């Protein structure tokens, strides 16, 4: 079984890597979207390997089933085609900044992993939904409420944006 888990880990990593490369490099926005979806599915697989089925299924339900469909809708409304202005390559300054961001984040992460390797890799315990729910409403109540504040802010932001445009017209 352990060998199977290792194979699965390799497959998921490959899906995540290929998907993310496709997501940032594809000329067509919809293909980039498909790359993003592949990455999200790969991450769901990783959750599965960590023995948290609930999280994996929620990842698929929310991110693949709802969020990416909404992004897709936005793409369709803007009618961005492959030859549009977004398809032109980014200016040099942006590329340099992107490279900087990647090396800093990647550098810190890989330094952490190399200097402090994970001691054990035992099978994680499966946490039941009851425990998860009690935890979210009990000891982690503040974090849970803060997430809803983030959602509220984004909703208010969307309303504000739509409002300004209507006044402009």
């Amino acid at each position, binding site marked *: 079984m352990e060998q199977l888990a290792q194979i699965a880990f390799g497959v998921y990593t490959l899906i995540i890597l290929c998907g993310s490369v496709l997501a940032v490099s594809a000329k067509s926005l919809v293909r980039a979207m498909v790359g993003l979806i592949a990455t999200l599915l790969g991450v769901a697989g990783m959750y599965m390997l960590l023995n948290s089925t*609930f999280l994996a299924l929620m990842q698929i339900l929310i991110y693949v089933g709802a969020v990416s469909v909404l992004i897709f809708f936005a793409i369709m409304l803007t009618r961005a085609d492959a030859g549009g202005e977004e398809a032109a390559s980014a200016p040099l300054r942006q590329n340099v900044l992107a490279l900087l961001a990647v090396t800093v984040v990647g550098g810190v992460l890989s330094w952490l992993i190399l200097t402090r390797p994970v001691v054990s890799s035992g099978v994680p315990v499966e946490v039941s939904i009851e425990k998860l729910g009690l935890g979210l409403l009990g000891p982690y109540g503040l974090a849970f409420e803060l997430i809803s504040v983030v959602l509220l802010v984004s909703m208010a932001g969307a309303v504000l944006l739509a409002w300004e445009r209507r006044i402009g017209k």
Partner: protein
Amino acid sequence: MPAELIHILIDLVAVAASVGLIALVMVWVERKVAGHVQRRPGPYEVGPNGLLQPLCDALKLIGKQLFMPDHADPILYWLAPVLVFLPVLLLYMPLPVGEGLVPLDINLGLLLILAFAGLTVLALLLAGWASNNKYGLLGAARAVAQSVAYEIPLLLSVLAVAFVAGSLNLDTVVKEQGTWPWNWNIMTQPLAFLIYMVSALGETNRAPFDLPEGESELTAGFHVEYSGMGFGMFFLAEYANMVVVCSVATALFLGGWQGPVLPGPVWFLLKVSLLMLFMVLIRWTYPRVRFDQLLNINWKWLMPLAVANLLLTAFFVKLAQYTFVK
């Protein structure tokens, strides 16, 4: 090879075979019902009462040439029909057909079905967009607005039953219900059942909510450019999804395989077929709604009702807990 893997493989093959068989039977039933509703006999020539007609149709579909329109996105265009059918195989796994007859017994079976059913919308979108056709694109745009909207009351009505049963495992939900019809969840949750069935029609793109296809205005909507088995896959997936939706309704509201006298699997199949027949009858009885009507039904009726139902259910479940504990 571990035994579990072989177990899953056998289940997959069985599911794939039954999906094919069910689709063949359903095509026949649908055409017969349509015929009799419109006072004509329906398919009649091939086999007894036209029973072999769908088989001939399937052979014809397989034999046809596969086309792709100019300037279509080749990868996404062929990815869509595969993507629409793949999750279907997974959706059948957590369904309890009889006592101890569950292909994949996991605690979160209901959630698994809901999560992977969302992939179907994505496939419709990809099909509509990649076809490089205005009708396809319009169909895809409608599919999104519709399925995103109807998913919410569907989830809320399912949650109400999950609250009562205290589990997301379909097998447990079935076992909580009794043998006789008055022990089934439909007696305590009639509103949730109604909301579930209406949103299920919306989610499976069945008439009167078949606006993404809407042949009178969009020719065939998202699958207008697909020929042969490309179209066949969407067709198969539609019937397969109908079976899943009806099976989940049976397990949640109609007591699943529970029933007097007859063995479990027979009851399960009987209830599922009755629900399917109901869906077919609705298709040939009601005219297609307008798009604003479709969204109004959802946002102004189903959604508030589902939320109210969920709140009431939660209140009563809590009340029952306190009174029974003390």
